[in-house]
Structure formats: structure tokens, C-alpha cells
């Protein structure tokens, strides 16, 4: 069976800048594909080409096996059945909530439209606000209406562009839960674009990291988190400690720990990477604890190697005893080494 949404070698150029370069990606049915990237990484362009708001210069886009975009052909957005949820909600200000949801139901028989719209209002928990105008709704409620409106016409893919970024943390987590639940129950692919690594990890069944218009890596969120293919992918998914050096005898020595690098030849310049949350600090003698700050259940500690001056960060249980000096450790699987790109060219 073909995936709900597939991009094959899609490129989109804006003058000299590359909007998208050779992106190949697919999203499963009834799942969430999260796209993580900084601003300018091409993730918004990705949504726009999938929605049909922009043409592609190379490659093609398929919805359930049907080609909707290729060079020289773009099925217009009003024909391709892709839902879009905007950062600013984009509700029609002159229509009530239920009128907004009904807007996209022109393909359904008229006598069924009211029932479908009410079902969706129910699904997002806003049946009581059906006749409210957008300006009478809170930000979270507006976002729910936008979600219901995009889903009501049963799109083959639903695209969400930073949909929760304007909301406070409590509403945000409520809406994340709601969106995931609906995605699991609804046919079609959900493509969720965000610059927030934690949100991407939470939402994703499948996670894609983008930078500079290119797909950096795409995988299941856990594997991507644990085994990133590049330094960029590793850094995109949360804070990391880094140290650049030269590989000797199959390993890269850092002031703190040795990193095994069996696949790299001696003399290669490489960067050792370990996630801040994977580095543990225990009372010891070798390193100075420069600072310790509470961060909820755990404390962030700054560990300094006095000989080299290098500073790393580690997370320790908040209940750990006070310490002036420490020892650090990290599980072998969390010690990553990436060749520095320049050394190969």
C-alpha cells in the first residue's frame, strides 16, 4: 500500500536560495510525521509545496499514490484535499465557529453538513461554542476550531504549521494530547512542523530533521534521538556537550571521557558529542563543579576541567548530595563521534 503522503526528490528554488533541496520523505496513514527545523530550514516551504500553494521545481509529491505535484504540474490546493492549520489560526472572522467548520464541506450533501460540523465541534470539545465568533474565543479554542475546520472535509493529509506556538504551556500540552488522539483515530497523514525539539519528539511517530532546505535525517523519534547520523541531527534534538579533536587508536579523547570511534581512521578530525541529560556527575576529585542550578526534578551542573578550561553540562538528581568536585560518566551508547565535515574534503 502506498503511504498517505510521499515526497520524492522534491526541490524548490527561490532565486539563488534553495527553499528545498532534494527532499525525499513519506508519512504513514494514521500517524504523525513531525518536521523539526530552525527558521529558514525550509520546513514552511515544505508545507506550502505539499498544500499546493507553491509549485515544485524537481521531484514529485504523491497523496495516497496520486501525483499532485511535479515539475510543470501543480494540482491547485482547492482540489487536492490537504488540510492546513495555521500558526495564526486563520479563522474567518465574520463566521461563527460552526460556520467556519462548515466552510470546507461543500463536497458533502447539504443535509449532512450540519451534522458533520457538529460532530467535529464535539470531537474538539467545543460543541457549546458553536455559535461564537472567533474574537469571542480564547487562543486555545480558536486553535481547536481551526483543527476541526481542517479535518471536517476528511483531507488525505493534514498539515500543521507551528500550531501551538501562540499558546501557554498548559493549553499547549492539552492540545498536543488532543491532536495526537485525533491523529490516531483519523485516516490520512498528519504533518506537524515545529522548531521545538521537545514538542517534535512528543508528537512524532516519524521524525524528520531539516536544515538549510535539506532533510538531515528521518527516523523514529527514539532512534533519531539515540543514534543521530550527524552532529546537526544530534544538536537539533536537545542540548549537547561537544569537543572537537583528532581520532587516535580508534578513539577520540576528550578532557572528560574517551569516546570510541572504531569506524574512523587515525588522524581524522572529529567531534565527540554527548547529550547533557546523558552525562552524569558523581562526587569525585578530577573535575571542578563550577555551578549547580535547580531544574525541577534534576539539577544542572557545570563541570570544568581545570587543565583545559573546557566546561560541560550534566544533569543530576536534585536530591544528590552537595559536591565541590566530581567525576563524570556516560553510558557507552550515548557517546557519539562524528567526523568533522571539512576533514573529508
Amino acid at each position, binding site marked *: 500500500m502506498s503511504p498517505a503522503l510521499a515526497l520524492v526528490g522534491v526541490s524548490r528554488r527561490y532565486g539563488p536560495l534553495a527553499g528545498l533541496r532534494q527532499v525525499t520523505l513519506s508519512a504513514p496513514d494514521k500517524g504523525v510525521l513531525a518536521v523539526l527545523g530552525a527558521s529558514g530550514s525550509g520546513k514552511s516551504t515544505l508545507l506550502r509545496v505539499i*498544500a*499546493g*500553494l507553491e509549485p515544485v521545481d524537481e521531484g514529485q509529491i504523491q497523496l495516497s499514490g496520486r501525483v499532485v505535484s511535479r515539475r510543470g504540474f501543480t494540482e*491547485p*490546493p*482547492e*482540489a487536492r*484535499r*490537504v*488540510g*492546513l492549520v*495555521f500558526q*495564526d489560526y*486563520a*479563522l*474567518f*472572522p*465574520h463566521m461563527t465557529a460552526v460556520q467556519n467548520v462548515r*466552510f*470546507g464541506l*461543500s*463536497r458533502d450533501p447539504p443535509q449532512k453538513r450540519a451534522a458533520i460540523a457538529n460532530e467535529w465541534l464535539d470531537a474538539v470539545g467545543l460543541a457549546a461554542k458553536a455559535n461564537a465568533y472567533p474574537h469571542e474565543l480564547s487562543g486555545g479554542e480558536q486553535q481547536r476550531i481551526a483543527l476541526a*475546520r*481542517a479535518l471536517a*472535509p476528511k*483531507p488525505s493529509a493534514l498539515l500543521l504549521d507551528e500550531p501551538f506556538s501562540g499558546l501557554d504551556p498548559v493549553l499547549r500540552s492539552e492540545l498536543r494530547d488532543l491532536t495526537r488522539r485525533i491523529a490516531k483515530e483519523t485516516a490520512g497523514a498528519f504533518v506537524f512542523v515545529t522548531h521545538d525539539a521537545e514538542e517534535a519528539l512528543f508528537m512524532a511517530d516519524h521524525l524528520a530533521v531539516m536544515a538549510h532546505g535539506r532533510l538531515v535525517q528521518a527516523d523514529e523519534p527514539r532512534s533519531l534521538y539515540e543514534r543521530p547520523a550527524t552532529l546537526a541531527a544530534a544538536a537539533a534534538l536537545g542540548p549537547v556537550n561537544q569537543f572537537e579533536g583528532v581520532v587516535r587508536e580508534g578513539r577520540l579523547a576528550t578532557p572528560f571521557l574517551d569516546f570510541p570511534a572504531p569506524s574512523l581512521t587515525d588522524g581524522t578530525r572529529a567531534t565527540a558529542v554527548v547529550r547533557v541529560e546523558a552525562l552524569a556527575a558523581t562526587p569525585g576529585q578530577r573535575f571542578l563543579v563550577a555551578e549547580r542550578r535547580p531544574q525541577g526534578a534534576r539539577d544542572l551542573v557545570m563541570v570544568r576541567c581545570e587543565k583545559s578550561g573546557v566546561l560541560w553540562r550534566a544533569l543530576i538528581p536534585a536530591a544528590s548530595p552537595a559536591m565541590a568536585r566530581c567525576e563524570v560518566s556516560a553510558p557507552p551508547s550515548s557517546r557519539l563521534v562524528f567526523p568533522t565535515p571539512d576533514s573529508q574534503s
Partner: protein
Amino acid sequence: MGALAGLVCAAPAVLVIAGALSSGPTSPLPFFWASVAGSFGLAVVGGGFAALLGVISAWLVAMCAFPGRRFFSWALVLPLAAPGYVLAYAYAALTWAGGPAPLSVSGFWGAAWIYALAFYPYVYLAARAAFASQSACALEAARSLGASPLAMALKVAAPSAWPGVAAGTALAVMEILADFGVAQYLGVSTLTTGVFRAWFSKAEPQTALQLASLLLTAAVGLLVVERLLRGRRGFAGGSARWRPLPRYRLGAFWTAVAFLFCAGLLTLAVIAPLGWLIRLAALRPLSDLALLAEPLGNALILAGAAALVTLPLAAILAAAARQPDPLRARLGQGGLFLAGMGYAAPGAVIALGALAAFAAAREAGLVGGLSGATAFAALLWTYAARFAAPGAQPIEAGLSRVSASLGFAARTLGAGPVRRFWAVDAPIAAPSVLAAALIVFVEALKELPATLILRPFNFDTLAVRAYAYASDERLTQAAAPALLIVLAGLLPTLLLSSRIERARAGRRP
């Protein structure tokens, strides 16, 4: 499309310049230099005085807390509802023409006084917007660093507000140069009255065209200055977060000064002159009203026709400037600027241009003489040329409410272009289109010089009737038509005031 619409608006102005250039040098009439001096002097004195009144009142209302502040905030805009000539008639009636005040509001200083009171709201609006859009944080920072109200005004607020103030002053000076009614009535020689004299009394079309192109050059210069400054108004910016501005609580003395200043300004610009006109109108027998029926009907028909002709033009201009394609948008912006030229040009000048165009068409055998129908057409063209730009402004603002994402949302929900227009764009932009229609309607109702030049024979409007009565020293009879014009002008003025109040920086639209 947009550029074309702009050309339609700018064509009469261009024809005037072409006519003046084609004539070659002629010896200027004796009143040529007096006209230039009169206009220049009034622009400097009247404009300067208007700027002073506008900035002080805007500063008090935007930055200080005193009783009545909210009321003054919108009431100080009211003089915009009354055309300058109505104010001039009222002051004449109040003073030398048998009124109670032992003053003589006439001649150069009288005209400067009237201009200052009639046009300070342009500066007031621009300055208020500039003060109001400053970052509250910057002002709070200044206060926490110990700045007094005066120091804050001079060191923080003034530098960030000056582009707005200068742009508003440019608008006021533009209005002063374009004015005909005030200068004519108070007996000052200006470029506009010179155009009239040369055209009608002295039958010197070449001098008229020369004076007109001089006026036009000044107006376009002011327009360019205003546009450039308006583009820089943004630099107050900073934090986009909306917060009530930290207003200064004034002490008892300064509270009294602030209140008396605003109340005095309002009394001089609105309450006294209009009150006196109302009193005069009340002296006349009711049968006077019957005499007004015809000019009122004419004015409504003419203004309605002007709105009908101008609205499509304004809509095209506004839509063209908002094209997604950057090149087309640039063309559209060019069209808007051309239309702005039509707006900046005095009515008398545009009317001359339209006349020149029709004269040329007659020579080419395209139309007959300047009969009722052609005169009417020329008049409508003049109105369209002058008021397409102010009409395009609210439409542009309305279209900007239809954000790009709304259009995308409609598309992804399966709506084609026709449905998008009727179901989304049109209903959202409708109030702004109505506002534009209202503005054009009222402007056409108030317009005097072009109407005087181009109206078909014996076709009197309210403005023409008021002018005729006042010129005959029958001020008591002029009061009623003048008041009707003011009444019509109130609507768009209040609309404008409330819209600007709502458009405070950083607030959600």
C-alpha cells in the same frame, strides 16, 4: 490596472503642466507675485501655527492624564468635519460682520488664523499616532531613569515622533495651498485665487495655467515629503507589546493648563463658530429651508455620482498595490502615488486640467460644446481624480485584514476564486468599502473650487450656495447650507477618529 487607474487620476494635473509649458514665456500679470507671496506666507504662518496647536494638543492627550482627556482625544478631531470656508464665514459673522467679538478676522492674519484652526487636526492625528505608538517600555525606562515630563517630551518622545509630525504638517500645508474659499472670502491673494482671477475675471488662461502648475509643483513636493516621512514613522517601534502608555499625572496647576488649552482650542475651532452659525440659522424663517431643497438634492446627487465613479477606481488602486507579485505590486504602488498627485493637487487646478482635456476633445470633434452633460462628466472626473487616493486608503486597510493565511485556508478547504471572493474577501472588506464610499461622498459634498468652475449653469450645490450667500454678505442665509455640510462631514470624521484610536500599535487588530 492600478497604474492605469493612477493615470486617470493624474491626467488632469499633467495636462495643466503641459498647457503651461506649451505656452512659452508670457509677462506675468501684476498679481502673479502677490499670489506667490500670499500662498508662501500663509503656508509658513498658517502651517506653523497649525503644527504648534496640533503637537501640543496631541502631546497632552496622548501622554498626560487630566480630566476630560478621553473626550478631548476624539473631540479635537472635529474641525476636520468643517471645510475652511465654513469656518471663515462663521468667524466673519462672529466678528466684523455684525458679530459680538471686537476683532477683525480678515486679510492675511485672519486667513492664517482660520487655517490654523481648520487644519491643526492633520498634525494632531499624526502626532497623536506617533506618540501613542511609542514603546511604553522606552518611556517607562526614561521615567525610571528620572526624566521629568518635559525632559521626556524633548529627549524621548519628540525625536521619535517628528517624522509623523512633519508628515502631518505637510498635509496641513497641502490643504492650505489648495484652499480657495477662505482666501477668496477674506480677501487674500494666493495662488488658488490667482488661478480663478486669471481664468475668469481677466480671461488670461496662460497665467492661470502657470499659477496652477506652480501650485501643482508645490503640492507634489509636499506629497513626496509626506510619503517619505510616513515611511520612516515606523522607527518609534521597539517592543510590539501593547500596554497602556504610562501617562503623566499632572499637578493641579498643570491640570488646569492642559484642560484649558484643549477646551479653549475646541471652543475656538468648533463650539464658538458653529454655535454662532446655528444661532444665525435659527434667526431665519423656516421657509428658508425650502430654498435649500434644490441645492441639497443637487449636492446629494453629485456626491453620490462621485462616490459611484470613484469607488471602482479606488478599489482597483487598492487591490493593485496589494498584489502578491512584487513587480505588479510596485506598479500598483506607482498607481497609488499618481492618484496621490491627484489628491494633493488643488481642486481648481484639477478642474482646469479637466477643462483643458475637454477643450482638446472638442477641437478634435469628439464632443460638442461644454454642455450640461460634458460639464457634469468633467466634474465627476475631477472628483474621481481628487478623491480616489483618500478612498483607496480604507479599502487598502480593509484588504490587509484579509490576511494571506485566510486566503490559503479557504483554498485548502476547497474554495475556488469566486467563492473566496464572495464568502471571504468581500464580507471582510465590506465595511472598509463603505467607509471609502462615505469619505468620497463627503469630500465631494464639501468641495468648492472645482464645483464652482465646472458645474453646469444654474446647478447649485450646498457649497456653491453657501459661497454665493457669503460673497453677497448674506451670512445669515449662508449659515444653514454651511451647517448641513458640516453635519455631513461629521460622519467620516468620527469614523476616522475611532479607527485611528483602535489602530494603536501592537494591539491585536
